[in-house]
């Protein structure tokens, strides 16, 4: 305890009382207790890597969402809302909801019926070993990097907000995640993600509630933002007619096609970090319902992430700036908007719960990365390429060790990021290189039976290389932005959207051309993998309110409504 207290320095953004510390310590104790409790229920590969495939739709759905709520999500998008206004909500609505519904209704049957352990595993069944190897190795590497970045970001936040030593935060959080995932496998990660989801809401929901009380409601908030910043900050679509008319420097085509159709579909339907949670569902109906439940809650997340950023524009007495300017002037950066709002409204106890919500968010993201890495490494790299035909117990043991090693390498990555700050930008760009082409490969594989193994591999390869090429082109010659993002006025966000769109198109075109020149598989070989040659169980006997399609329609109607409401 002395060491703990010694790690807490007096100069901080907020000051924790004894009851706040008790709440944080209790949280760490509870997640470890859950890991210990579940240790005895993770003895087989199916238990450890797939949580026994016995999760209900609610648990799989909340875990699916919670694995994404971690990382830089809470702090980063609150900061983006302060910086860009309500445009940041696009990443929660058009940038998530259609893709999540598509995953539930269209894609889940193929993932689930094929009984694959992972997305690279599906590529093996559909396109062959080379596509799986390319996808698995890139995913494993990127997952470790992302996990390290998350870890470093969390440690940085705890340093800024609480004054905690960075090394102390990294060691405590990584050891906790390693312990509960290594002990209980995916089941433990999922249990904790659901707990973390509830704590995030319990800790963060009070900020927008009290913020709206202070500002006098949404209408008054808009007036105050118009006075302090600009009226553009509260419009979702009206400012997207030109790159120059909005603070994000983006055009509606980039949001709709780049974000809405490519990046979002790529992330939510093919990133194994989130798909793994749905694959753990107990039956096909639960697997289809899980992303729909996730979508319903995803639509509400802007309330605890975007709204606090907007409230910061209205009520905070100081002007927040970028990280560099904040360091130079000694002021506060955009990234501190959520802790500042927390400190504004939350007294003893509530402050501890709010900080717990932040820690829970970061830990759920880290655990999501580590458990997905463990599965892909064990099944798609180790068992496929290094040691075939070992016993199930051997692979479970490998999974446990791999969890610890994965966390260890994430810690190394965190220190690498710390040493070279610009690496963070590069790695996030690297991660995006694989998402859009992978989506092109998977969607063609599922919906077009003529796609061949060679087509899948070369399409994925060409899409990835073209994405890296476009990124390097703009880095070397910034003037190339006018070609990649269609405008010299485009900013970083817009460049990412259009690069994703072009790389997806390259992937799809190359896959189609190569497939047409190579021999297709027979219908019998594609059974269970491709639309049109797979018998999907009908739901005719189930009441309408039990059907995933019904709830997907309900969520879709609300999705359209919120876009019109904040137009």
């Amino acid at each position, binding site marked *: 305890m002395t060491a703990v207290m010694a790690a807490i320095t007096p100069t901080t953004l907020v000051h924790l*009382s004894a*009851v706040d510390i*008790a*709440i944080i310590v*209790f*949280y760490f104790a*509870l997640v470890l207790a*859950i890991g210990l*409790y579940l240790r005895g*229920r993770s003895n087989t590969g199916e238990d450890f890597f797939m949580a026994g495939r*016995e*999760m*209900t739709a609610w*648990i799989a759905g909340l875990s699916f969402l919670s694995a994404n709520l971690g990382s830089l999500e809470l702090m980063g998008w609150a900061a983006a809302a302060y910086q860009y206004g309500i445009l940041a909500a696009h990443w929660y609505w058009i940038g998530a909801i259609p893709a999540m519904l598509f995953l539930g209704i269209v894609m889940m049957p193929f993932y689930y019926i094929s009984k694959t352990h992972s997305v690279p595993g599906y590529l093996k069944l559909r396109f062959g070993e080379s596509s799986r190897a390319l996808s698995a190795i890139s995913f494993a590497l990127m997952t470790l990097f992302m996990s390290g970045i998350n870890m470093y970001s969390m440690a940085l936040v705890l340093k800024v907000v609480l004054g905690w030593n960075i090394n102390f935060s990294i060691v405590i959080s990584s050891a906790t995640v390693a312990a509960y995932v290594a002990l209980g496998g995916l089941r433990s990660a999922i*249990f904790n993600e*659901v*707990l973390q989801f*509830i*704590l995030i809401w*319990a800790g963060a929901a*009070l900020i927008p509630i*009290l913020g709206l*009380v*202070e500002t006098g409601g949404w209408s008054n908030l808009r007036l105050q933002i118009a006075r302090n910043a600009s009226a553009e900050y509260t419009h979702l679509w009206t400012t997207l007619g030109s790159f120059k008319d909005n603070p994000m420097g983006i055009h509606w085509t980039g949001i709709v096609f780049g974000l809405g159709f490519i990046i979002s579909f790529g992330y939510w339907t093919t990133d194994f970090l989130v798909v793994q949670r749905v694959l753990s569902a107990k039956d096909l109906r639960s697997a289809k319902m899980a992303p729909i439940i996730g979508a319903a809650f995803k639509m509400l997340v802007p309330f605890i992430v975007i709204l606090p950023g907007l409230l910061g524009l209205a*009520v905070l007495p100081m002007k927040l700036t970028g990280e560099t300017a904040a360091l130079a002037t000694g002021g506060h950066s955009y990234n501190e908007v959520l802790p500042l709002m927390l*400190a*504004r*409204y*939350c*007294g*003893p*106890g*509530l402050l*501890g*719960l709010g900080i*717990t919500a932040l820690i829970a968010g970061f830990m759920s993201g880290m655990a999501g990365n580590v458990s997905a890495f463990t599965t892909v490494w064990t099944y798609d790299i180790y068992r496929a390429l290094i040691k075939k035909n070992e016993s199930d117990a051997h692979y479970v043991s490998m999974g446990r060790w791999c969890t610890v090693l994965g966390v260890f390498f994430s810690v190394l990555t965190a220190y690498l990021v710390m040493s070279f700050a610009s690496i963070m930008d590069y790695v996030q760009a690297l991660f995006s290189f694989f998402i859009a082409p992978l989506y092109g490969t998977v969607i063609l594989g599922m919906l077009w039976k003529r796609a061949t193994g060679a087509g899948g591999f070369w399409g994925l390869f060409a899409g990835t290389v073209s994405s890296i090429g476009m990124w390097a082109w703009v880095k070397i010659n910034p003037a190339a932005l006018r070609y990649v993002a269609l405008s010299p006025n485009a900013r970083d966000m817009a460049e990412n959207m259009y690069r994703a769109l072009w790389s997806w198109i390259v992937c799809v075109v190359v896959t189609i051309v190569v497939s047409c020149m190579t021999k297709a598989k027979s219908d019998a070989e594609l059974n269970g993998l491709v639309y049109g040659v797979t018998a999907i169980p009908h739901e005719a006997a189930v009441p309408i309110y039990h059907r995933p399609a019904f709830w997907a329609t309900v969520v879709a109607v609300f999705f359209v409504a919120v876009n019109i409401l904040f137009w």
Partner: protein
Amino acid sequence: MREGGISIWFFIGVSLLVNGILIVGAGIWELIAPPALDARVVLFNLHANVWWGALLLIFGLAYCLKFSPGRKT
């Protein structure tokens, strides 16, 4: 998720219950011994930690009882 084990909702109930008790306790202590004016949070007069903590406590207690490992389904 309760076959042969403790439900995740029970763990969530325990978490909300303990947090609720601690937060309500801190809120009541602030009512008894209010902090100095310059140390108070914005909207201190609403005593958010009392009612928000009570809400967590009630939900936590309900989940603990409903999903208690000893309770027969």
